[in-house]
């Protein structure tokens, strides 16, 4: 599995297809987050913006190989594992991206509540921000896995589904991503830090199920 992950990571890096989602995320953050704003609010944005980016990264990773190359890898390790490696590489990239953004945002933001008066403890806030980033990355990966090959094969359906599902996963009631982001933004009003542990556990579960479904379906649709 290590070799497979290394191969998929090298493929993503060298193909340079990671660049558009990375730039999109950078633009999102440049618009939504400015230095000196309340810390928890900014961390909330950082996590929320990561969700569509993670979904896009999954789409890139699972469509990165030509069918013939996918075939030979699937023969060696089984199509399910080959697909799992793609999804895991996308998740790792999203988490790395989100973690770097969280660190940057923590450094440039003002550690105060929304009222710019009450102090917010920085280490706890950063920890809660990282948890929220993880939650959103996981949920984005779930969205990406469910809206890409092998579930939706034609780009004509997959891309609109991705574009609809990613914002929906952020706003729909009961979504772990929404809960994690509201934990941060809600806490900012009272200048208290709520670590979104429960939403993250839910996101882990959801993503595991979504990925398992996608990997299991690769058998029927492998080239």
């Amino acid at each position, binding site marked *: 599995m290590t070799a497979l992950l290394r*191969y998929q990571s090298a493929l993503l890096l060298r193909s340079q297809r990671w660049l558009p989602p990375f730039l999109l995320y950078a633009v999102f953050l440049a618009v939504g987050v400015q230095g000196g704003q309340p810390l928890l609010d900014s961390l909330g944005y950082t996590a929320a913006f990561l969700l569509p980016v993670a979904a896009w990264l999954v789409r890139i990773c699972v469509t990165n190989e030509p069918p013939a190359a996918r075939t030979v890898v699937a023969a*060696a390790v089984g199509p399910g594992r080959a697909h799992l490696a793609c999804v895991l590489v996308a998740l790792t990239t999203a988490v790395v991206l989100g973690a770097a953004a969280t660190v940057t945002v923590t450094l440039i933001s003002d550690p105060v509540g929304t009222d710019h008066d009450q102090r917010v403890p920085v280490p706890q806030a950063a920890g809660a921000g990282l948890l929220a980033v993880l939650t959103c990355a996981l949920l984005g990966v779930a969205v990406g896995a469910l809206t890409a090959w092998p579930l939706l094969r034609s780009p004509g359906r997959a891309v609109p589904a991705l574009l609809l599902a990613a914002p929906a996963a952020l706003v729909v009631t009961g979504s772990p991503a929404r809960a994690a982001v509201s934990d941060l933004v809600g806490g900012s009003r009272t200048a208290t830090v709520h670590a979104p542990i429960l939403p993250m556990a839910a996101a882990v579960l959801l993503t595991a199920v979504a990925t398992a479904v996608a990997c299991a379906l690769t058998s029927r649709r*492998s080239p």
Partner: protein
Amino acid sequence: MPREVRLEGVGRRYGVRGPWVFRDVDLNPAPAALTRVDGPNGTGKSTLLRLLRLLRLLRLLRLLARVDAPTEGRVTGTPRTACVPGRFPAALPFTALGYLTHLGAVHGLSRTAAERAAGDWLDRFGATAHAHTPMSRLSKGSSQKVAVAQALLAEPELLILDEAWTGLDTDARAELDRAVAERTAAGSAVVFVDHDPRRLAGRTDAEYTVRDGTLRRRTAAPAAAPDGPRVIIEVHGPTAPLPPEILRLATAAEETADRSHRLTAPASHSDVLLRALLTARPPWHVVSVRQDGGRRP
């Protein structure tokens, strides 16, 4: 743990209500055997090879298969598998050597072993000059060499060749024939599909035809005398008769004098045969090796 693959009563269709591509297929590519599958275009040869490729997942999916039934039947065995697709225009952001090293590691080799094997196989197929060429700039034939090297470098237990010879030059085709002989001699099962009926003729252990949605074993057709160059090897050795694995590799063997034998083998199998003779216990002394003209294809 049996590494041998066995398909029993396997069927495959696309979609729950789609027509069956084939049903009731029994296939058991035995270790150390060369199996040929042929049939007209579009009868499901490649789909069958695909089933062999997807073995691991099929086992896992037996439960799911009961629900949506695109696949039926029993599959046993999980050999280390490698396949060569017929078309490999893989525009990947790697050099040929870089890609092969990655794939060798995916097949389970260490990084250093993978890199060494990748270099060796590129050399065997005469593609060393392209080792550092980006994959996207390789010609069709050179890409196919990479596809073949990828499958061979980790010494798979089940090798699937789906028109793997297409696009290779004459030398590389002969090298692939030799590599197939080596794999079967080392105990791997090799299954191949090729449009050329003369491909490895007379060297296959089992031949199947896909017809009317099922797979039939061809037994009637007598093994055609292999075309192409042959090699005659004269050996002198122990009093014991020639071991059966050596007789299996040779197409003809005659005792010319006491303890002396003359063996005839297809040129593609001469290396394997010589290796078997020299490593047999007790080893045989090779007196002479010469080429027999034969009919060139």
